[in-house]
């Protein structure tokens, strides 16, 4: 079957900044795919190239088999993009906005579908309202509706939930899951790693314009060979010998990395020998955020001296808004 998205050796430079260096990526039809990475990793650039908003310096990009440059009419018909920025046209009402967007795709008499999309996104009551009068969350819904007017088989959402309240976020994910069940391919970028973990079956992680990890979400999470031991201790400080294991420390609560259950016993013994009492103990499974942090730090260009320390974790731009 034709891949929904096929990206081959894409390079893109903005002046002195190499935004993308040799991206290869394939997303199959019907996938729910996540594109993760810190700010400036190149996620939005990649999406812009996919959508024709930017042009790759070299390499080829296809949507449903159609080249985004040579065959742009077909590729754009196959793609719906929900942009990251909250943009709107202040001259028009919600319905006008959606009708005009349909018209750009050459669609006449699209009102039945527009009504359905508005209904699903709880926009029906705002159909006649001017775009300017809508709240941020409502404007976000209109952007989603605009991306769907032409029923694209492939839908890209670029951080659709940034700055969006919990209720809308839940509603939006329910809606997008439904689209995926109906056969739409979904590509999602988000800063909320729990969201990516819950929604995406496969994930690519980008860093400095390169794909540094590409696997199913479960493989990514399972490939961490570590567990986390969360301890609250009293009576003495954490022994220095354990410093290399610390993921983070706050007051007397320390989260330590352990490779296996067998190591737990040894760590606890060291804590007791230092004269500290263990007041609370919890064993945590790694989640996608841990994988993300580990992968992003591992790629620091070989500067792994003397073990990873807590500041690495705190400085990682994994989820600033979590």
């Amino acid at each position, binding site marked *: 079957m034709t891949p929904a998205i096929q990206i081959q050796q894409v390079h893109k430079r*903005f002046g002195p900044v190499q935004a993308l260096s040799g991206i290869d990526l394939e997303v199959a039809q019907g996938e729910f795919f996540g594109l993760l990475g810190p700010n400036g990793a190149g996620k939005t650039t990649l999406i812009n190239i996919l*959508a024709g908003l930017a042009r790759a310096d070299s390499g080829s990009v296809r949507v449903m088999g159609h080249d985004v440059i040579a065959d742009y009419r077909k590729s754009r018909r196959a793609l719906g993009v929900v942009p990251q920025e909250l943009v709107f046209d202040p001259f028009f009402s919600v319905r006008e906005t959606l009708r005009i*967007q*349909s018209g750009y795709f*050459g669609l006449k008499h699209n009102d039945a579908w527009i009504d359905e999309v508005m209904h699903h996104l709880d926009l029906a009551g705002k159909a006649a309202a001017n775009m300017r009068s809508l709240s941020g969350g409502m404007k976000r819904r209109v952007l989603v509706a605009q991306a769907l007017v032409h029923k694209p088989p492939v839908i890209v959402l670029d951080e659709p939930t940034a700055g969006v309240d919990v209720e809308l976020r839940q509603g939006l994910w329910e809606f997008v899951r439904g689209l995926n069940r109906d056969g739409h391919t979904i590509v999602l970028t988000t800063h909320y790693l729990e969201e990516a973990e819950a929604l995406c079956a496969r994930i690519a992680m980008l860093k400095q314009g390169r794909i540094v990890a590409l696997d199913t979400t479960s493989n990514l999470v399972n490939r961490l060979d570590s567990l986390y031991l969360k301890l609250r201790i009293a009576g003495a400080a954490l022994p220095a010998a354990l410093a290399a294991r610390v993921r983070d420390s706050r007051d007397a609560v320390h989260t330590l990395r352990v490779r296996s259950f067998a190591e737990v016993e040894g760590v606890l013994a060291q804590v007791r020998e230092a004269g500290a009492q263990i007041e609370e103990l919890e064993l945590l499974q790694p989640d996608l955020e841990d994988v993300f942090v580990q992968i992003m730090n591992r790629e620091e260009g070989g500067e792994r001296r003397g073990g990873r320390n807590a500041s690495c974790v705190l400085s990682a731009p994994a989820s600033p808004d979590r």
Partner: protein
Amino acid sequence: MSGFGTLLYKELLRFWKVAFQTIAAPVLTTLLYLLIFSHVMQGQARVYGAVPYSAFLVPGLVMMAVLQNAFANSSSSLIQSKITGNIIFVLLPPLSYWDFFAAYVLASVARGMIVGAGVLLVSLGLVGLSFEHPLWIIAFAVAGSAILGTLGLIAGIWAEKFDQVAAFQSFLIMPLTFLSGVFYSIHSLPDFWQRLSHFNPFFYMIDGFRYGFFGVSDINPVLSLGIACVSLLVLTALTLALLKRGYRLRH
């Protein structure tokens, strides 16, 4: 409706929704020029032997309104879309660069013609005018507004800030229109300025437009229309090349 038709409709709707600002205001401004200049210049020698100054002035002012509003329409629409980011709504769909060009320029022509017609209608209540060759009037209005609509598109594509469009307007469009013979016949100018005026393409548009009213002009209207058409073709080719490359629109 086709993609092109929708973009044209959207561009027309855009200025129509703020018609007070985009149509009524420029009509009023132009009429103020007419009132003030025809008052100040009352008793001034007749132009072309028989035409009173106020009658001579009206076609110039109408054409100036046509040109300035055609420029304002495409340039402000595009720069607003770029600054607010909603330009992506027209960049994401499968619109060709021809669709894009034609829709923006035709909407500019429409705005220029509507404002020009407004100025002309009100002026007729104040000043007696003849209409010797109506087809020439229409031909020059269409060509002039298309040229300025295209220039507006170029300004909008090139500019990254509002003040760059304003600079384009203040330092290029305004001097070229004001010095094109809107308010005077170039025969009243010293020799040097007369010859310099022949290098201003706007001069030919105004002169030819006036020919349609009075049947007399400084330059043969066929030549003027030819110059206008060549200017339009050159600017169209340039704009299409910019759009095809995605210059400052698709990065």
